């Protein structure tokens, strides 16, 4: 980036903001027409991307203040400090302290951008990553380009990949892992797994549940093995009850503390209310999560709305549930054995998050980090199994 040779000044409060960010946008448009020239994208996609590349202009400073997603400062400064050959936090590295911020900074710093001049700039870097991801996804076998365009037009996908957050670095590798595994291409999966491990350990855990169930238990081939796996998992929960509940209760408390006004400092002053209680048994945890899943599915609920963004995300939740049911029905996924382990790992994610949910904004984000990759994977599973059925029918006739 050119900033390597220039002192960092945040131009977010001046008219130069438009000049620098417009150059980032123009650069993105150049990439779009270049991709079209190489026949990597269609005419429709060309126009869609010209429009959606403008996403970063819409959110920060327009719909909301950049402080609403305060993490943006972390990743922007990670990249800025790297440009000057420094570290945002001394001693950061890939396997220890501040590994998440460090890796996000490293990855985003390699995305070519003309100017990193404001908090919005990395939004364009994320959009470029989303564009490359789109090209990859829309060119794999069986998928329809229009459906993939539909996925990348999901409002949350546009939102999180238009901000200077690390969400694109979680959503994209998680989707690549699941889809590559379903395609039987293991190299992209092996490359992306360490990234997800560092950037979002929870998502890595849910992916691993799916991979272990299919690789070791072969749950995608046999319903009996799937049932054995589920029963083993439940027995495992009871055997390691103390350890599992300790982790769940710790995270529950951490999310309660984070949700206080002034975060952990506020929690330090006011402490816990009498309503909060630790989960004391595995059975309690299962009952609580079953009660919590419907709430998590529809977050943010109308009585918690604090703006237009909340309303959009609520209707998006409803649309995604309808989309899920549509996928299951259209591709008769209930008849496809590989559907069950995939949905089970998604269910585990929802079950765990429903126990932790305290803050709507945070959990809408967390939910999308699993919903998007799993939905794309389910779609791929649907189209590929439909294709295989057709082939089988052809052979038999």
């Amino acid at each position: 980036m050119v900033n390597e040779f220039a002192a960092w000044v945040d131009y977010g409060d001046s008219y130069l903001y438009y000049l620098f960010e417009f150059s980032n946008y123009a650069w993105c448009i150049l990439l779009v027409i270049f991709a079209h020239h190489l026949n990597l994208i269609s005419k429709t996609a060309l126009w869609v991307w010209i429009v959606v590349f403008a996403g970063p202009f819409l959110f920060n400073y327009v719909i909301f203040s950049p402080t609403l997603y305060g993490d943006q400062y972390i990743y922007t400064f990670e990249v800025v400090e790297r440009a000057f050959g420094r570290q945002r936090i001394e001693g950061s590295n890939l396997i220890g302290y501040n590994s998440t911020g460090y890796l996000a900074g490293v990855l985003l710093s390699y995305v070519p951008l003309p100017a990193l001049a404001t908090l919005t700039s990395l939004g364009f870097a994320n959009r470029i990553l989303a564009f490359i991801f789109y090209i990859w996804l829309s060119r794999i076998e069986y998928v329809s380009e229009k459906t993939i365009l539909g996925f990348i037009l999901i409002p949350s996908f546009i939102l999180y990949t238009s901000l200077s957050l690390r969400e694109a670095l979680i959503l994209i590798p998680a989707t690549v892992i699941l889809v590559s595994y379903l395609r039987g291409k293991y190299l992209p999966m092996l490359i992306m797994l360490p990234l997800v491990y560092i950037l979002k350990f929870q998502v890595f855990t849910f992916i691993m549940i799916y991979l272990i169930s299919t690789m070791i238990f072969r749950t995608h081939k046999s319903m009996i093995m799937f049932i054995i796996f589920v029963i083993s998992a439940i027995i495992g929960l009871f055997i390691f009850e103390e350890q599992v509940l300790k982790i769940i209760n710790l995270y529950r408390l951490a999310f309660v503390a984070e949700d206080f006004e002034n975060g952990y400092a506020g929690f330090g002053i006011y402490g816990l209310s009498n309503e909060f209680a630790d989960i004391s048994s595995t059975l309690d945890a299962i009952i609580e999560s079953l009660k919590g899943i419907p709430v998590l599915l529809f977050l943010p609920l109308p009585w918690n709305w604090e703006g237009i963004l909340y309303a959009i995300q609520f209707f998006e939740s409803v649309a995604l549930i309808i989309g899920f049911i549509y996928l299951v029905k259209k591709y008769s996924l209930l008849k496809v054995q590989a559907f069950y382990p995939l949905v089970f790992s998604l269910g585990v994610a929802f079950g765990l998050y429903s126990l932790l949910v305290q803050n709507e904004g945070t959990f809408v984000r967390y939910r999308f980090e699993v919903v998007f990759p799993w939905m794309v994977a389910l779609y791929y599973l649907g189209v590929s199994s439909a294709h295989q059925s057709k082939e089988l029918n052809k052979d038999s006739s």
Partner: protein
Amino acid sequence: MNNFEQSLKLTLDFFNSHVLTKSSLKYLGASLIFSLLIIFILSPKFLISTTLLENTSTAETQKIDGVGGLLQSIAGGAGNTNFEKFKSRLESTAVAKRLWDEGWGKKVFAPGSDYPLDGIPKSHSMGARLSALLLGYKLSDTLTHHDMKQFAKNSVGLTKVGRSSKIVATMKSRDPEFAKEFLDALIYIADSEAKVGEIVLTKSRIASLKEGLADSKNAIVTSGLSNLLNSAYFSLVTLESDQPYFVIIVDKANSTETPISPNIFLIIFANLVTFLSLSAFISYFRANKEQIW
């Protein structure tokens, strides 16, 4: 021809037909003119900064052992650090009012003019005028300390460096001498205003502690309250001295030697990219009108 060769051919074709063209040169020339125009319009801004240390050794933050410590932690409110108290004051109306009363309004909004302090005319945007007309309220014709508050809030940044006690206050200005003076004055006034509030609080705490001591019949509680009372009196003495209380000034306001904004190279480069992309887009659109429209 394999895929790689075909992609290479298409890439070269794209650059030759749409990027490295004669019309691109015209756009590059236009971008240079546009950049120069912007650079001439903009005025250079210097970065003025001052380094402070959060005063963590004030009497109130000294830990007292035993029951006194417990009582102190309940009474003190551990969440409000001196940095937070200082920052809140810096952006307060009380500080803006003092700055205004000390004549900073004129230095900030009408330097070198003959206007009296309370007679500096205030201009309003069309939107503000329209709102006032529609909603039926009157807009102030002159600037007040509220404008000073907004100016201080918008132009001065206060950041704490990591978990250390180092605080950096920054300001961007065309006039470094004025900004240095303003930043120093703002910090001194914010600290002294914060002290005023703290003195009132400490005095009321002393009165309550005295009442508590008079009513106490338990020796351990009496001892704890006595320790707290001593600590509160010590705070009061420190607060009433002339020295800054919440922050320690390590380095008074100083300016960068050269302007930090605008960055002319960044402006030229950003415009080059914009104009080149625009040129490529127009050229590509013209050449492929039938296919992409």
